[in-house]
């Protein structure tokens, strides 16, 4: 069969892959986009960001209803119709997936459905339903993403032991759910199941949930989770899991103290691994690091000059928006532009309740690297908007370079932190100073004012915080 010839082939149609494919096509390149899943959109759309956020939004109402009582508005106990909830979630995915397919078509991007395998540095074999297809390309972009890691000790083949992929399918509402791993995926999905009525226990091997995030940002989340979940158990390791009738018997150990418990379902969220098995990389010059992620330069180019890699396959922060940015850089590099992943600020958001978001330098990183920074904080208890939302459990902080007052990073915990952080990204990217932020008028009453007030507090003059300047003598 005649091979497909193209200038650029993108393997994987996630937020990195399809964005790269579209951008290349917009720049006049002939592009093929290879995806094994019938629906485009990758992990993010199918089994990641989008379905999890849909479920988080839908289940938020439980908390609202409960809290509403104290505001003098009462509802009867809400009921869940799982099938309807699933269908609603699915309808969103379908809408978005079709949107991407339409955009690909409109740009003339050739979508090939099937599993890609590199034959050499210029040929990709695709196993499609209609048989093998070969794509001869000039440049390739690897954007195949990652999958949830499942340690072999837990992999009993029992469907009651789930990864995030299965958990997002909402098979049922288990009375007792164990979440192994207190990272962002475990905390977000734990929140969904707890809202639906499961008794959720979260295990974390390290001393804190959301490891790596600044402690003051985690604290409100931990406090809220302790209320919403049955228990958060840190310093705890799972030793063994076994099938016990319709339940899972889990043997765990906290500070050398072993114990055994029964759970109706277990969610394993202990990290993610790149989807690089059986991709044929051994037939190319692409190299991997010791953790199995692809090694590439600031132009996203791998050791094989014809092949670029973007997104989760490169390790680091596994985030959709990072993959998208890397995709654009890879395409610009192929077009011969002087593009580079040059001090790009990648924000991170954890959709717990309350949300946590940060960008640029964190306080932890500053400590680790011994960088002298000043921290300016504003607590949401003093924000009018936070109180009207009945959500004073928040905090906004700036990480500032003392000599220049330049904003190096921002961290937010509180409702809508994920939407608020973008202003921080802009500030860091633009090299803005604390004064720039303090002098930009923010609308009242909004949560965004907390950013301005945090900047003002750097000078000790935040309107709604205790002044650090002593009153002048009369």
């Amino acid at each position, binding site marked *: 069969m005649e091979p497909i010839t193209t200038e650029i082939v993108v393997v994987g149609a996630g937020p990195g892959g399809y964005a790269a494919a579209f951008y290349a096509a917009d720049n006049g390149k002939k592009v093929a986009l290879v995806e094994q899943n019938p629906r485009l959109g990758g992990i993010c759309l199918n089994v990641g960001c989008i379905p999890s956020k849909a479920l988080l939004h839908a289940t938020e109402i439980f908390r609202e209803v409960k809290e509403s009582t104290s505001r003098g508005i009462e509802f009867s106990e809400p009921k869940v119709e799982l099938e309807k909830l699933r269908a609603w979630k699915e309808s969103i995915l379908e809408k978005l997936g079709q949107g991407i397919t339409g955009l690909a078509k409109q740009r003339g991007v050739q979508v090939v459905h099937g599993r890609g395998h590199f034959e050499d540095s210029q040929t990709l074999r695709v196993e499609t339903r209609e048989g093998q297809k070969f794509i001869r390309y000039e440049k390739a972009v690897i954007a195949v993403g990652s999958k949830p890691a499942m340690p072999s000790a837990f992999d009993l083949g029992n469907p009651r032991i789930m990864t995030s992929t299965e958990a997002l399918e909402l098979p049922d509402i288990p009375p007792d759910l164990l979440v192994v791993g207190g990272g962002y995926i475990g905390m977000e999905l734990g929140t969904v199941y707890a809202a639906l009525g499961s008794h959720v226990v979260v295990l974390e091997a390290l001393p804190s949930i959301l490891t790596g995030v600044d402690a003051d940002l985690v604290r409100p989340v931990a406090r809220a989770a302790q209320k919403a979940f049955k228990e958060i158990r840190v310093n705890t390791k799972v030793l063994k899991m076994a099938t016990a009738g319709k339940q899972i018997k889990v043997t765990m150990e906290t500070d050398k103290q072993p114990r055994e418990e029964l759970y109706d379902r277990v969610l394993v969220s202990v990290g993610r691994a790149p989807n690089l098995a059986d991709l044929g990389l051994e037939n190319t010059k692409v190299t991997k690091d010791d953790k199995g992620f692809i090694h590439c330069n600031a132009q996203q180019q791998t050791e094989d000059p014809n092949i670029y890699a973007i997104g989760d396959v490169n390790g680091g922060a596994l985030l959709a928006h990072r993959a998208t940015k890397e995709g654009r850089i890879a395409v610009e590099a192929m077009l011969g532009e002087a593009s580079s992943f040059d001090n790009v600020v990648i924000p991170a958001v954890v959709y717990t309740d309350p949300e946590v978001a940060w960008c640029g330098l964190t306080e932890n990183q500053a400590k680790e690297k011994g960088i002298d920074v000043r921290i300016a904080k504003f607590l949401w208890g003093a924000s009018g908007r936070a109180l009207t939302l009945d959500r004073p459990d928040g905090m906004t902080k700036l990480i500032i*370079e003392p000599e220049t007052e*330049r904003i190096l990073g921002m961290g937010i915990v509180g409702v809508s932190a994920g939407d608020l952080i973008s202003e921080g990204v802009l500030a860091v990217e633009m090299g803005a100073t604390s004064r720039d932020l303090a002098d930009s008028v923010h609308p009242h009453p909004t949560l965004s004012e907390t950013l301005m007030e945090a900047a003002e507090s750097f000078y000790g003059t935040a309107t709604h915080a205790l002044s650090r300047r002593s009153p002048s003598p009369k």
Partner: protein
Amino acid sequence: MDVKLPQLAEGVEGGTVVNILVAEGQEIQKDQAIMELETQKAVGSIPAPSTGVVTKIHVNQGMEVSVGQVLISIESSGAAAGATAKPAQTPAASSAAPSVDSPSRPSPEATAPPSQAADGYRYESKSGAPPPASPSIRKVARDLGIDLTRVKGSEAGGRINLADVRAYIQWLQEIAGQGTAAAAAAQSGAATPATPSQVVDFSQWGPVRREKMSPLRRTVSRRMVESWTTIPKINQLDDADITALLALRKKHAATFAKKGAHLTVTSFLLLVLGRTLKKHPRANSSLDDSSLEIVYKDYCHIGVAVDTEGGLIVPILRNVDQKNLLQLSQELDSLAEKTRQRKIAIEELQGGTFTISNQGSIGGSHFTPIIYAPQVAILGVGQGRAQPVAVDGKIAIRTILPLCLAYDHRVLDGADAVRFLKDVIAGLESFDEADLKLK
């Protein structure tokens, strides 16, 4: 005021106006793009240095313009108004000690160099953060090959804006201008002053067609005149018997091809030259006229002349002496390809210590190349041809590669050159097969 084409990057002498974005009589803002210019490397826009009204446009679309040429004239009201608005501040005080926080920048037209023109400025941050500049300014800097740690930012927190970048470029241009002016003055004393050749009307003998020299053609032309007029050059001719080498190439070409590498005579030459230059460091040196010193380089970066549609370009292979034959072949392939597609960065054309000009793939026998100053030698390579030669008293047919080492007699003597070339020939004639083994 006249807006002139600034120096855009090192080695970029000018470009073609592809788009004029303003009209005569139009009011324009400072930093507004006035036209787009295509250079050897990229298309970039030229920003207006100040606010005002365009009184005249001196160029047309499609016109070739050089650095320093007047593009448009602006009648700027802003500068005068600004001066009267702040009578309290004396100009002397403001120019002597510009504070970091001061938002006002000296106009690029000002004759005094901008404050950042202090030599050796480097942005340093205790936090290790890069110099503060918006993503769009960082992109401009990347496009123009400007290192932002060298640019002093004028805004709060040392933030760099477009005017700062422009002032820095202007300063670079001035420095460069002073350099060439000094060199020209030094030359004119000894040599005949360069006068433009007389304009001849060729059409009096028949029809003619005129074509503007491309920026690249002009660069080649200038560099060649520079080399020809400044370097006392000797050409050392010799031949290498590459029959055995070609047999080795045939034997191993397929293995290399599997690794995506073409095994060419140039790759062999690079390996041999890397070693020979290490043995003869003087051939890898440069002459510093001003200090009367010979500069020996511990690195060995070899330029390889590449014939492109636009003309000759010489990209540089770095650290040739530290690489094996496979690496050299692969790099040569990708570098030549990049050069032909005109995707080579200006930095990749700089820093060479020696050059190979191999015409063999096109044809040609001995030729005498021109040295690529400030290097001191170049190897010209012709086509390997089957020839009858005497081997052990008998006539044999061997493949003979014509070589010419052109060298700067100020640095190298005849004996040095012969020894150097003999070592290159020996390296080719008794090439060690071990060097072809892939590890």
